């Protein structure tokens, strides 16, 4: 909240500069790409204005053209792309028609950019200090003899501890947050007038996100720079920007001051986006637009269930009271150790920067965790990357074996069955999963129908399906339940959208009528509007089929919407447990409070 106040103060502090007029003016910008399907217009007639010292947010879902717009401003489009129409004027320079030489002088020195994946944005085999030095030298901001000192000075500015040492570090030796600081240092090295931040915090944990955003805000303010923040997160944009531009399918649909966007969205698309953004004090059904825009996933008779829920009511009010229900899953003293080397890198990449003591030969991904999931209950497992939540869910899924601990499912000690044999165990069908990345979780060679049919073919004896026609009917029934239009059933994954793929994944997970479904960040790869629909779908299915969910997520707001109880994890241990309301509204643990505070708070 402080940041926001500072910002407004900062803007008001420089009225003179503001009066000088826009730093960047984009008029009727149209960008086209030559693809194998012909010309595709990615950006249509876009108008933007960035004044000096202003922070402009460009918000849109995937395919909205927001990133293309930013690349166009830098003139770093792929070879296939070209500016078809419109003008871009930066400080009086006609960017659209400037020579490549002019652009090179502009890039880095006048306009610079930070990117989504900080680790990938840095040359993996060049010392970070040298990478910053390259830019300084190129733009004549330093000479070979003093370049190192300059770089270290910049590293200090972006709050890198021990800059002398970090100068010689390679990107892989730094944490994600640290890498993003380096990228920021790189971008700000030559004191540019405009910073374009393209999804600068996507993929970072909320606490890191906050730290990075605060840093960017502070540094740009101090230098009187203008910023364009490109993000899919309306909340983030509203929190950190002066003005927000909403884009949809290459067009700007709305431009408004940040405070107004949430309070009074004008355009239907903006309204939809605002609604779909999870935020405190709303219910799951509030995420959806008033009139359902997606095909009805359920038979009419059952539709009323979620809608009958009142404001702020518990989502599972129709269910048997989970508090008194029998425990379906019981996890006791779960422990998972990995040798430090040989662990997949991504697994504890986040931890690397935190410098865990290297002499420890074993690394505890899960450290004595115990919890229960009752019949019909949804339990959220929340934590930042590397907290052990995914390891826990994978063990509960019985895809890997725990080092020690007991897992009881419906009275049976399934932890005792080796993961390898579990594939053929009758219990297998009762625990299913919805995966994080819908694209990755579908075999590119299987049609949607084949993917959904797969579990039925393997373990569907109970349904007594005979012949192709019956199988098709069953698949169609499942697809209908998951809200997947039947004409998409014969398509391959690459012919489906992200939301459609998620539906296929969900239809597959429910095909065997499981008792427990583990949702591993099921919406993390989806746009918010799609996320809203999918979350509602999951809730509806749970009600209909009487399943229990173990919901693994990093996003407390999302967890709250879907779950009865929340478990907060950190470094393999449970930090806090309680009902969703308790945890979110009256967190006991300091860590939980920190997490909640780090979530962007748009001015509502």
């Amino acid at each position: 909240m402080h940041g926001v106040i500072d910002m407004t103060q900062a803007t008001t502090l420089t009225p003179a500069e503001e009066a000088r007029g826009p730093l960047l003016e984009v008029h009727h910008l149209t960008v086209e790409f030559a693809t194998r399907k012909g010309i595709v217009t990615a950006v249509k007639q876009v108008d933007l204005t960035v004044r000096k010292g202003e922070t402009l947010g460009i918000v849109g879902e995937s395919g909205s053209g927001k990133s293309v717009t930013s690349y166009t401003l830098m003139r770093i489009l792929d070879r296939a792309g070209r500016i078809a129409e419109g003008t871009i004027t930066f400080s009086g320079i006609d960017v659209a028609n400037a020579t490549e030489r002019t652009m090179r002088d502009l890039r880095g020195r006048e306009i610079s950019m930070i990117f989504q994946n900080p680790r990938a944005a840095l040359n993996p085999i060049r010392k970070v200090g040298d990478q910053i030095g390259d830019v300084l030298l190129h733009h004549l901001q330093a000479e070979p003899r003093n370049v190192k000192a300059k770089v270290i000075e910049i590293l200090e500015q972006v709050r890198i501890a021990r800059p002398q040492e970090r100068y010689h570090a390679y990107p892989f030796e730094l944490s994600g947050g640290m890498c993003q600081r380096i990228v920021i240092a790189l971008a700000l090295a030559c004191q540019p007038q405009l910073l374009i931040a393209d999804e600068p915090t996507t993929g970072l944990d909320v606490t890191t996100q906050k730290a990075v955003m605060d840093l960017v805000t502070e540094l740009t303010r101090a230098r009187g720079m203008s910023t364009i923040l490109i993000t899919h997160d309306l909340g983030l944009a509203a929190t950190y920007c002066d003005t927000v531009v909403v884009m949809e399918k290459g067009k700007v649909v709305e431009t408004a001051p940040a405070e107004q966007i949430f309070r009074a969205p004008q355009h239907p698309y903006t309204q939809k986006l605002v609604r779909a953004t999870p935020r405190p004090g709303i219910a799951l059904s509030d995420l959806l637009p008033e009139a359902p825009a997606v095909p009805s996933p359920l038979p009419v008779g059952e539709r009323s269930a979620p809608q009958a829920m009142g404001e702020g009511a518990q989502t599972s009010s129709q269910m048997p009271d989970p508090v008194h229900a029998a425990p379906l899953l019981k996890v006791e003293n779960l422990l998972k150790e990995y040798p430090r080397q040989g662990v997949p890198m991504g697994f504890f990449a986040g931890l690397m920067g935190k410098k865990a003591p290297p002499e420890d030969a074993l690394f505890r991904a899960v450290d004595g965790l115990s919890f229960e999931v009752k019949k019909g209950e949804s339990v959220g497992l929340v934590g930042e990357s590397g907290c052990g939540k995914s390891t826990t869910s994978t063990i509960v899924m019985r895809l890997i074996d725990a080092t020690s601990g007991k897992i009881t499912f419906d009275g049976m000690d399934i932890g005792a069955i080796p993961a390898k044999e579990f594939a053929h165990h009758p219990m297998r069908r009762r625990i299913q999963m919805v995966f994080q990345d819908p694209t990755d979780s579908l075999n590119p060679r299987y049609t949607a129908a084949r993917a959904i049919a797969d579990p039925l073919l393997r373990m569907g004896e109970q349904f007594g399906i005979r012949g192709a026609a019956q199988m098709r009917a069953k698949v169609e029934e499942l697809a209908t339940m998951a809200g997947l239009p039947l004409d998409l059933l014969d398509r391959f994954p690459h012919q489906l959208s992200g939301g459609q793929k998620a539906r296929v994944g969900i239809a597959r997970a429910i095909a065997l009528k499981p008792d427990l479904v583990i949702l591993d960040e099921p919406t993390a790869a989806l746009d918010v509007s799609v996320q809203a629909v999918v979350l509602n779908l999951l809730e509806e299915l749970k009600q209909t089929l009487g399943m229990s969910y173990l919901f693994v997520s990093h996003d407390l707001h999302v967890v709250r919407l879907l779950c009865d109880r929340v478990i907060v994890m950190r470094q393999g241990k449970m930090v806090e447990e309680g009902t969703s309301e308790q945890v979110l509204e009256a967190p006991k643990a300091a860590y939980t409070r920190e997490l909640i505070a780090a979530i962007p708070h748009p001015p509502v």
Partner: protein
Amino acid sequence: MLKLIASRIATAIPSLIGVVIVTFMLTRVLPGDAAAYFAGPAATPQAIAEIRTKLGLDKPLPVQFVDYVTALSKGDLGSSLSTGQPVATEIASRLPASAELTLSGLILALAIAIPFGIMAAVKQGTWVDHACRVITTAGVSLPVFFTGLLLVYVFYFKLGWAPAPLGRLDVFFTAPPTVTGFYLIDSLIAGDFETFRSAAAQLAIPTVTLAIFALAPIARITRASMLSVLSSEFVRTARAAGLTPYKVIMVYAFRNAMLPVITTLGMVFSFLLGANVLVEKVFAWPGIGSYAVEALISSDYAPVQGFVLAMAILYIILNLVIDLAYGVIDPRARSEA
């Protein structure tokens, strides 16, 4: 670093054992009879049997194998039947010839193929790209012996630009004192430029022949890895920071793109050593490949075994060098070690 080398060598040992066993088995099933060869053209069956006993060829295979391994552990590779020389000496004298030729071929190929690959990647989809693809592919499509003969015909016989294909030096030069066994280097060490010139001239056409063959795999992998690096985010960052295309391509993209190229080099080298066998035959090159071919055709066990062993060791060393080179370029590989 020593640890890395040691672990590398340790992992190579099973392969080495495999190579020894496979070679032994392979040479024993070769048709032909060393004893009959030794006994000479007019030998009686008794004489042949005697010689067979003398050579230990009448013993059961496992015993022969143990004998072979025992001798091997003493550094005794046996003697060749057809040249009559100890295999170890012959390999030692012939290996540098092959290595010099193969390395020259490889270096020339790299010098041409890498710029080709980079150009093709930078100008992806344009005529430059297609031209690179066609040219390099054409090179690999020609059997080396055919290319070699053609080049000799044109550049030696027709045009007279190249010297006679008579091995490593013109007949009237004497080899420089051996330091490395590479004539180019040894002659420079000896300060003998005339010999250097002759050695280089002799080397030219066989090197070109080999290089033509090696262009395609190198150019192809360079192009592919360059394309993937050029589309990577850090290159975009570098471009966004206003660095010149030259700096972006050479400092940022190129060094990263070289990593897969280096990995492939091991394979290309092995590939070239195979091609070398034929090139040596065409150019009367006193290398190890032609030696092995002759030995193989005449069922001469010892040189074949010695050759394969030498190659296996060379291959292991090469991979070690590649690993180390990789480590020099890529800090990530270094930290893993």
